[in-house]
């Protein structure tokens, strides 16, 4: 991953300290997140709902 992009993303997430102290962990995490999302076949049906569904009044 491009280092300047990684730094920008880490700073946006508030991870300046982690980036300074554990740069390899932060870089590996960004790559891991990309790989994880890449393994998901996101639904193509625009009506596909997420789980768990919103249920008004339940669980309150």
């Amino acid at each position, binding site marked *: 991953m491009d280092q300047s992009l990684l730094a920008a993303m880490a700073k946006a997430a508030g991870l300046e300290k982690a980036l300074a102290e554990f740069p390899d962990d932060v870089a590996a995490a960004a790559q891991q997140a990309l790989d994880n999302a890449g393994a998901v076949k*996101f639904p193509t049906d625009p009506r596909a709902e997420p789980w768990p569904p919103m249920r008004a009044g339940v669980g309150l």
Partner: protein
Amino acid sequence: MTDLHWLTASEASRAFAAKTLSPVELVQHLLKRTEQLDPKLNAYIRLDADGALDAARTAEKEIAQGRIRGPLHGVPVGVKDIFDVATLPTTCHSHILVDNIAKTDAVSIQKLRQAGAIVMGKLSTHEFALGGPSFDLPFPPARNPWNTAYHPGGSSSGSGAGVCSGLFPVALGSDTGGSVRNPASACGIVGHKPTYGLVSRRGVFPLSFTLDHVGPLTRTVADAAIMLDTLAGHDPEDPGSSATQARHFGRLLDRGVRGLRVGFVRHFHETDMPAHPEVAAGLEEVSRVLQAEGAEVRTVRLPALDEFRGINRVILSSEAWSIHAPWLRDRPGKYGQLARQRLLPGAFVSAGEYIGAQRRRLELIASVEDVLRDVDVLLCASSMDPSCRLDDVPETNRTYPRQARAPFNVTGHPALAMMAGLSSGGLPVSVQFVGRYFDDATVLRVAAAYERATPWHTKHPPIG
């Protein structure tokens, strides 16, 4: 009588009722065993000997007066150190929470105490139930009683090691990607992840709200049913808690499997993630045993393991990040390396990816539900490999994700892992049974039939 430390909860309960054993005698025996064995196992983070003996004396008095509360009255239980136990620290095996004293009991602890169970102490876990076996934490990692150089599985590591080695007959664990069933598989015991929402999570440090489950680790299936009978029930203050009235989880234990339809998910361990040959052979043998007992076993197909794993990781890392972000920002060095590495990816998951994963999750749930309309229970792998050496980091990293447990955290179906043999290296291999929502009783029924037909539950590790 069986050695006291190998008594199951059911056997101990019967001995208490028959007045051939008292809770104080049992607790004293287990404390002595802990003193001898735990330096080799590291199952405990904190042993509460005084609290356990006090509770044992109370139980002894009540039982002597004929006020028996139920099958867990006087029975010692170990507790993973992410559950709040009032007045004891809930450290989550982390420097971050090393002084975090719990003010109240978790709901599951309240229920166990009401049932008369005796809390022995707090048990080793992976850091925040996620990291892995680590040597840079405030407490050492637990070890496998079958061979203390080996990993006992995790993240409920101390629960697995302690039940397996006879430090207590039953324990509590949590399961977000397989953390009850992994130590059950590695240690050769029984680990049950109940249907999502059946057991309250209140008072348990969260890892991933929509994936977290609380469940028991035991040496027998009957004890798992007893624990679930005590733990299950609606909690209006846990938003994920179900209002189901499912109860009496052991009611089918003696029914056998004749006439049941078992769906064998072969592609998980044959093609999706080819298993160690001894694990694959063990699964074939489980299928053969169930058929010999009268079940109809047929091959079924679910979505691929990689799909479930990707969904589990996107959701888990996102939800865990929402919990840990403040600490990861302010004091990342307080985490062990493994936990830090496994928590940071959540910072880089977009909202769209998280919601997209939750949408795909519903489709995967529907796929599993379709299959469970045609069969009563699923049979599949739990771990793809026997346990590896604790100090072999590359092998730990290779084998840790090689499992078929996470799919049922994604879907929330009840799933139980148990011993299905011993490898040539003398380590347990395992099987997993999965059932319909809130039909935990049928999962336990199949597991009990398998248990009766095989000798594995009688095997104990060569640790003393």
